[in-house]
């Protein structure tokens, strides 16, 4: 089972979906599932999507190292240049760092991202990874799946599935960038 489905009423103010402790537990469980689904960590490479996917990938790697006793190679992927909406997105998004630490041919690459929504980010990430090599398998692990897919993209490991209306948003905050660990949800028009 990918995760716990919690039916939500429509909140009118930003609400906490996961607090720091809950987030930590969820991340730990995701790490276990990734190891389980990849048949062990020997061939595994975690690649976090800029920006918060990178921090999540770091934490997952730490858990795996604790549990399995082995270091997992971690990379970061910035998909800005591969977006399919660059012409319409407005302000030129700043391009972040892409670092792929090792050859990925034949490896199991697990993409890690914070929120899965339309699936276009992951589509871009798959295109970019293809330019780096040919993994034996690519998996996807996301902290939050909010539905609303526009492409046939599917996450193998999900932290929490949350139904969010179109005008709503889910934000993942990490202490490294935002000062605290939290997942919040808000309906657009009340608070941004």
């Amino acid at each position: 089972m990918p995760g716990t489905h919690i039916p939500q009423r429509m909140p009118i103010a930003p609400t906490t979906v996961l607090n720091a402790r809950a987030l930590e537990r969820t991340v730990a469980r995701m790490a276990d599932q990734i190891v389980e689904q990849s048949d062990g960590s020997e061939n595994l490479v975690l690649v976090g999507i800029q920006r918060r996917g990178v921090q999540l990938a770091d934490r997952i790697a730490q858990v795996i190292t604790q549990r399995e006793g082995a270091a997992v190679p971690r990379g970061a992927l910035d998909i800005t240049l591969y977006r399919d909406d660059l012409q319409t997105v407005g302000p030129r998004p700043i391009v972040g760092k892409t670092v792929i630490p090792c050859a990925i041919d034949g490896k199991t690459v697990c993409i890690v991202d914070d929120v899965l929504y339309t699936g276009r980010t992951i589509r871009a990430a798959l295109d970019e990874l293809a330019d780096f090599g040919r993994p034996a398998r690519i998996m996807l692990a996301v902290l939050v799946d909010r539905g609303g897919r526009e492409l046939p993209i599917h996450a193998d490991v999900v932290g929490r599935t949350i139904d969010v209306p179109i005008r709503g948003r889910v934000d993942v905050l990490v202490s490294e960038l935002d000062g605290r660990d939290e997942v919040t949800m808000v309906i657009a028009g009340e608070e941004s």
Partner: protein
Amino acid sequence: MSAPLGKDLLGLEHLSAEQITLILDTAEPLREISERAIKKVPTLRGATVVNLFFEASTRTRISFEFAEKRMSADTVNVATSASSVTKGETLVDTAKNLEAMKIDMVVIRHASSGAARFLAERIESNVINAGDGTHEHPTQGLLDMLTLRRHFGTLTGKRVCIVGDVLHSRVARSNIWGLTKLGAEVAVCGPRSLLPTAISEFGVQVFDRVEQAIEWADALNVLRLQLERMTAGYIPSLREYNRVFGVTRERLERAPRDLVIMHPGPMNRGVEIDSEVADGPHSVILEQVTNGVAVRMAVLYLLAGNAPALAEAAKGGDR
């Protein structure tokens, strides 16, 4: 900030420090693309870029071409001899023809100062100045700054001396504008016959002897001295230029600190710079070339697509 640089990149004189920093910050991560096995990102797929070079240039044109191709753009090279310009077609008509062919971007190098702006005012495509007369060469200035910034960590307070024929150098002008905007201290050094009379109004120090420049600077940007300067009578001979102004190992040995040595290329070995220096441990000349491709990719990226802002789509990330 839907078009952070505006429609064109014509020079650095009228860019703000923020805009210049944006280009450098964008270029940094783009360097990595040239290290991949597949040196390509799909960002400019379907965009058409014309390299309109009215002045012969191998290195700049190749650098732009790599940048364009690595962004997956379609490129067309137009060199003077092959184009209809030699049949007497004016720059205006060239511009209109390009526009009629729905070109997205034009990279232009021309022997007349102001030619890039002339073109930019007449076509809707983005125009990138790859060197216009003795006016500006903005991408060279930017790659020089990126190279220095990477080396020192910052440009603020760094002392950069441009050595050579500043009078005829668009590279010098772009460097002066860009570096001073980002807080560096800039000086020039050369024979007075090759410095503009009003040089002090550029906000730079002037050194008459290269020894003084070496004493003062953190970095030297050594300009190519062209043979034409001798035949036109600005200096008596290339040999004397090397003896008086040449950046030689002996002179650098007396420097109080390790100087970074830059050169926009192509070099006249043994004239403005000795081989030992150009190939030596303090030279960052090859890094400049690497950074050149990244800077040009960044410029293409930041100029491409002038759609108005869609705030919602932009914020929060469309996942």
